[in-house]
């Protein structure tokens, strides 16, 4: 009861804070005076209180909360207790609210240092969004409902009033088995939410700029860091999701073009486009209208993604159960899109006079190409995801859109993107003098082709693999070449060695080189995907204890079955020894975990990771006499995870370097004075 009261109070406080922030923010933006720090504090405090209440209830096994009664079990090990807070719908919205409060707080700190209408307006928008999400918690998605009628396991009826008579069950069913299986799953949602929710910041600044009639690069400049932070987390979240799918689900894949996966990918594509076109607006004041459209799209796509995941309108492995949250989210989505585009329509005269591009053979030109390609890519994913709905609504026919469709369009688009990724960094702003582009790009092209030929001759002639290596080498050598060129130039002037100058070149323009690191991360991912997808081996075998089979140069020996009882699950598996020739390599245990009363079991593969790639063993069936194993190899699959981390890392580096740059600028200003 106390925790329910505390949690509900927290939600109310956050709701009030958000509302005050919205109202006062508008007042300040229009020229009035009002305190915005207080409401922001209230919002943050309320959000923290709500989350704390939920976590305490989970870790202390307080089954009087219906959320705890229905999601938690005393047998769940500690870290998964904490993660149960976002294992189901209601708790995940609390997490969303907490992250939103955090980003709002960061925005308020910036406002404090530089209070003006633009910032106040942005805070107002963020307050409004907070009102919506905490309103959701209070109404349709409330984890603080108290259990008023208990079952043996779980809660039958609940009431949102914390003072209701409590009838708490003694035990709950525990979180979904899939969510207890691996630590990555505990981390994946918070990281992803940091990505999603962070996109509220640039959106808020954009709406503020539109409403106040202040076009120009200022709103992008202010929110760029938040965008990068959010983008980095979104990248990391997507990679973590793929990694988890690979490690935990037994199908050996990491991306299925499932609607919910697509829901995270679409904002990522739009955000990547926005980061690039935002740079164009900051440097050259171009693309103003496009940037508004893009940032509205980014934010809307995060809401659309949340909607698709939770509303039960689309069939997906990730679907939460249907609830009234669907219509609420859809209504909010419509409000956001219609409101933003209407506002944009009425202000269109302000943004229609940006300067034009002088030459397409310039960095702006390649950014335009990048944006066009990313937009088409995002559209492909969007259309593919909602097409079954549209078709059925308009014609009654039914269809499914899956991997074959997406791969067919996504792969060529990706390679086209890589093409421009190699051109963009080596092209200067405003255009390149004739010959400079050729001088910078001829070596990367030659090296790329050479690497491709080498791959075709000595690794594998498969087209996609060769193409991936070619493009990766082309992009990477372009970056390296640029670094060498600039270092050489400085070295010639200053007399220092190239290597020392290289360090200085990077330090002097960290945001640029951070971006290049992200680019390298992307091509590493591409190579990993190409190898893992095209050069893998697959086999299915039935073995009796003692049997041996040959696979991909290894000898797989089935030793015996085993069974282990753990506090929250029963583990059944096979002990397998892997040999290379006569040498022992590893002992693997592919298994199936049975949680609670579940009789299907969560099949967990055994993965052996080596520099060349992974050996992947899955249990299909086991009894005392024989085992059915599925054997796979995934060559170079670690490059996908590494590349993903590099890509996200580039974003993080860029954020920290901006802070440094600003500090440097401040220092130099002070020094000048």
């Amino acid at each position, binding site marked *: 009861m106390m925790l329910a009261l505390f949690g509900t109070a927290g939600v109310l406080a956050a709701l009030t804070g958000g509302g005050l922030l919205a109202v006062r923010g508008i007042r300040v933006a229009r020229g009035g005076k009002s305190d915005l720090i207080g409401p922001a504090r209230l919002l943050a405090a309320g959000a923290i209180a709500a989350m704390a209440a939920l976590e305490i209830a989970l870790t202390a096994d307080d089954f009087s909360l219906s959320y705890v009664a229905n999601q938690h079990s005393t047998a769940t090990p500690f870290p998964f207790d904490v993660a149960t807070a976002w294992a189901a719908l209601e708790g995940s919205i609390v997490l969303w609210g907490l992250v939103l409060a955090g980003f709002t707080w960061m925005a308020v700190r910036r406002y404090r240092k530089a209070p003006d209408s633009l910032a106040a307006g942005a805070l107002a928008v963020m307050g409004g969004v907070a009102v919506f999400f905490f309103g959701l918690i209070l109404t349709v998605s409330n984890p603080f409902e108290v259990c008023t009628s208990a079952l043996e396991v779980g809660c039958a009826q609940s009431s949102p009033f914390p003072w209701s008579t409590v009838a708490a069950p003694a035990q709950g069913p525990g979180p979904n088995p899939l969510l207890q299986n691996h630590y990555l799953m505990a981390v994946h949602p918070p990281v992803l939410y940091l990505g999603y929710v962070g996109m509220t910041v640039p959106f808020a600044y954009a709406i503020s700029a539109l409403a106040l009639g*202040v076009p120009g690069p200022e709103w992008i400049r202010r929110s760029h860091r938040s965008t990068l932070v959010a983008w980095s987390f979104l990248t990391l979240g997507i990679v973590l999701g793929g990694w988890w799918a690979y490690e935990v689900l037994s199908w050996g894949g990491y991306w299925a073009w499932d*609607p919910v996966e697509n829901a995270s990918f679409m904002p990522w594509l739009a955000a990547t486009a926005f980061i690039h076109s935002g740079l164009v607006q900051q440097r050259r*004041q171009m693309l103003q209208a496009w940037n508004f459209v893009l940032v509205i799209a980014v934010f809307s796509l995060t809401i659309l993604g949340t909607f698709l995941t939770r509303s039960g309108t689309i069939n997906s492995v990730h679907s939460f159960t249907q609830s009234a949250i669907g219509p609420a989210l859809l*209504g909010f989505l*419509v409000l956001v899109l219609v409101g933003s585009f209407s506002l944009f329509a*009425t202000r269109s005269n302000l943004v229609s*006079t940006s300067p034009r591009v002088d030459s397409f053979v310039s960095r702006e030109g390649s950014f335009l190409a990048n944006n066009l390609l990313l937009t088409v890519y995002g559209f492909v994913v969007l259309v593919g995801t909602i097409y079954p709905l549209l078709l059925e609504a308009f014609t009654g026919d039914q*269809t499914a859109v899956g*991997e074959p469709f997406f791969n067919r369009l996504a792969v060529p688009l990706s390679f086209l993107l890589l093409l421009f990724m190699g051109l963009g960094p080596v092209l200067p702003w405003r255009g390149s003098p004739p010959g400079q582009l050729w001088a910078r790009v001829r070596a990367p*092209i030659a090296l790329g082709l050479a690497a491709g030929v080498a791959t075709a001759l000595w690794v594998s002639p498969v087209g996609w693999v060769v193409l991936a290596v070619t493009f990766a080498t082309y992009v990477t050598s372009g970056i390296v070449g640029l670094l060498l060129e600039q270092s050489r130039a400085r070295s010639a002037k200053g007399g220092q060695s190239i290597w020392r100058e290289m360090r200085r070149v990077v330090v002097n323009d960290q945001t640029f080189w951070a971006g290049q690191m992200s680019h390298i991360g992307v091509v590493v991912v591409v190579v990993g995907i190409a190898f893992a997808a095209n050069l893998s081996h697959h086999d299915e075998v039935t073995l009796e204890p003692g049997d041996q089979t040959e696979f991909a140069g290894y000898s797989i020996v089935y030793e015996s079955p085993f069974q282990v009882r753990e506090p929250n699950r029963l583990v059944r598996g096979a002990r397998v020894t892997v040999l290379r020739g006569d040498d022992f390599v590893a002992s693997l245990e592919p298994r199936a975990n049975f949680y609670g009363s579940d009789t299907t079991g969560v099949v967990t593969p055994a993965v052996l990771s080596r520099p060349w790639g992974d050996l992947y063993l899955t249990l299909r069936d086991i009894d005392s006499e024989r085992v059915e194993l599925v054997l796979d190899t995934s060559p170079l699959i670690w490059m996908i995870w590494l590349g993903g981390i590099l890509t996200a890392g580039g974003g993080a580096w860029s954020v920290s370097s901006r802070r440094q740059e600003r500090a440097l600028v401040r220092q130099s200003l002070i020094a000048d004075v």
Partner: protein
Amino acid sequence: MSERTRTWLFLTAIATLGVVLVLTVSVQPQTESRVSHIGSRIKCPVCQGESIADSPSQMAQDMMSLIEERVAQGATDAEIETEILAAYSGAVLLDPPMSGRTLALWLAPAAVAILGLAVIVRWRRQTPESGVTTDVGRPSSRRRLIGGVVLTVAMVTIVVIAATALQDREGPAAGVANPEAQDLENVSNETLEAVIAANDDHPDINGWRLALAERYYEAGDYRSAFPHYLAVADSGVASAAEAITSLVRLGWMAYDGNEESETALTLFDRALEIDPSSQVALYLKGTVLWCGDRDADAARDMFADLLDDPELPDESRVQIEEDLADLDAGEECT
């Protein structure tokens, strides 16, 4: 080395390497078998989004065996796909064809790409308008803001209304409305008789009997209704309401059909044993006492008791008061 030489060197290198590359690269080798290929295009009907080639479920494996068999029999990819789609509809096709209704799926991205290119090119060609506008000051029209708000609210309303109107899909999630009520309407008397005859120990049988018997009763077919009411009344598992209804009907049929007042009264009494306050039983008993037995005093008592019941509906009250008035006036019953 002069710039020109370097350029030529690179061009030659690139050209040569390009040619070598094209020659050494093979078109994706068919490491994937035909069966695998076909399987990767069909969605597993019992899984969430996996293809039958990827899914470990039994159904997926059975479908893959079917495909293997068909491939061995010499069917083409298209024929096999058509066979499976004929059973499951296009909902299991992961790669919609580039024709007919799914053509839009392929055209849409192409359209966006072309549109985007056109916009960029046109944007480049336009002569820029005078100067770069920076800050134009806060717009004064509050009206615009209000208009925007009104527009948004209107849009949201449209969406809600249209969505409610369009909703026509019912699935298990919508809950199953009382199935028996629907089914009963569609079942003919003969079928219901047959079903009842065969379902002696079915838990719902009393409900069915009663429904059928009511049909006969309304149609005036007392003879057909009789055995069913009897069965319900005699069954040990009928609910109070079911038993009372049967007994009361039996009683009335006994009086109305066969003029057996004694039997009727006995049956009404049995009903009243179950629920002494049953309004129907009391009223009918009173009516039979008055009309059949000519025992006006007993009938008056019954009607008076009824009128005392505070939960008596108004129409019934009116009716009973009329009857009581008639009774007191010594009139014949109707």
